[in-house]
């Protein structure tokens, strides 16, 4: 079994069965299951923690509260103004949804749903929709598109700039999608490579393989911790960038 098969086994989605909904072929896959688990945690555990008054759950409530307040005070309000506070629910959900899917990827038998281009594309598309929705809601349909181009440029530049800005909107979204996907998958690939080192060196001789093993395991543990950091970091980055783009669409100046 080569590295390719191992990698595909661990990183790529496994579709178990398909369902048809009109023209769409909807897969039931491992990543969908992980997304479902994350959704279940968000739907059941979070309201339970937040609404309970028990002292045992107080630390968890405080953790959620700290993160939500951080999102409000450092991400949403500075980028979107006080009107943006209405979108706090969206950003909190976005952050925790991505975070939990990232973290499930670090649990044994779990898979990283955010390490799937289709999933990150879905998240990026919701961001794309939010950017345009909030921009149009805040400025009006025509004013929104008129303000896409910065003020004070010569008239002949207007059309090319409009096209570039419009393209920029799609590129931003695509960048969001690829950034999250690549970050989540990179750590897994590095871990697999470090583990494969043991067997690559093992093929020179059993003693060499055993000698390399501790180094490899140490590096794997280090990468795992790095992935833990990246799980939080990428959830934050995704929410932060969404807030920046949305804020820019709401207040063009």
């Amino acid at each position, binding site marked *: 079994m080569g590295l390719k098969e191992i990698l595909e086994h661990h990183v790529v989605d496994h579709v178990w069965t398909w369902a048809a909904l009109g023209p769409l072929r909807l897969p039931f*896959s491992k990543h*969908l299951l992980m*997304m479902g688990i994350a959704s279940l945690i968000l739907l059941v555990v979070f309201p339970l923690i*937040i609404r309970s008054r028990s002292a045992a759950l107080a630390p968890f409530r405080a953790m959620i509260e700290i993160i939500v307040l951080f999102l409000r005070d450092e991400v949403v309000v500075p980028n979107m103004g006080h009107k943006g506070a209405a979108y706090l629910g969206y950003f909190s959900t976005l952050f925790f949804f991505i975070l939990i899917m990232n973290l499930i990827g670090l649990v044994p038998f779990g898979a990283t749903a955010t390490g*799937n281009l*289709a*999933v990150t594309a879905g998240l990026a*598309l*919701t961001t794309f929709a939010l950017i345009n929705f909030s921009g149009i809601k805040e400025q009006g349909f025509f004013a929104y598109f008129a303000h896409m181009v910065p003020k004070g440029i010569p008239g002949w530049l207007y059309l090319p700039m409009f096209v570039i800005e419009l393209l920029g909107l799609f590129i931003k979204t695509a960048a969001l999608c690829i950034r999250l996907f690549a970050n989540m998958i990179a750590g897994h690939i590095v871990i697999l490579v470090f583990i494969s080192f043991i067997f690559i060196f093992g093929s020179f001789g059993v003693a060499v393989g055993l000698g390399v093993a501790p180094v490899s395991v140490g590096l794997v543990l280090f990468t795992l911790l790095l992935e833990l950091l990246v799980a939080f970091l990428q959830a934050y980055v995704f929410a932060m960038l969404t807030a920046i783009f949305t804020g820019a669409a709401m207040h063009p100046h």
Partner: protein
Amino acid sequence: MEALIRPEFGLTFWTITCFVLLVLVLSKTAWKPLMHAVEERERAIKHDRHSAETARAEAEKLKADLEERMKSFKAELNARAEEARQAARKETDLLLAEARRAAAVIVETATKEIETQKAEAARGLREKVAELSVLAAERILLKQIDHRANTELAARYLGELEKERPEMRLENN
């Protein structure tokens, strides 16, 4: 490996559905109560702080008031003490003067009394001395008398006496 970067758009659909539903549901079930609690607490903190500040200002005012009253009390106390001291001094002076006057009176009466008694004693003494000397003279005279010689002597003395003090002459009476 191309499976890694070949997106399954069905999954995109699932993701969007899932996420939008989560946003709608969690906004009601999780974030709303959370933010409600947070805002409640923030308001409570603000209220507590406000009331604490009010209480502090009140306490400070009360303290200033008390200090002022204390100061006025002290001033009054000092004034009263001064007054009492002055009254006491006046009283002392008065008493002293009175005592001095009384003493003077006593001394005067005593002196007078002494004078009177002295005069009386002197008078008594003089009488006694006169009597004693007369008696003594009598004794001496009685012892020494020789009738004849004495008669002569007496005549002579009488003559002398009559010469000396003519107003004592018996004949003239």
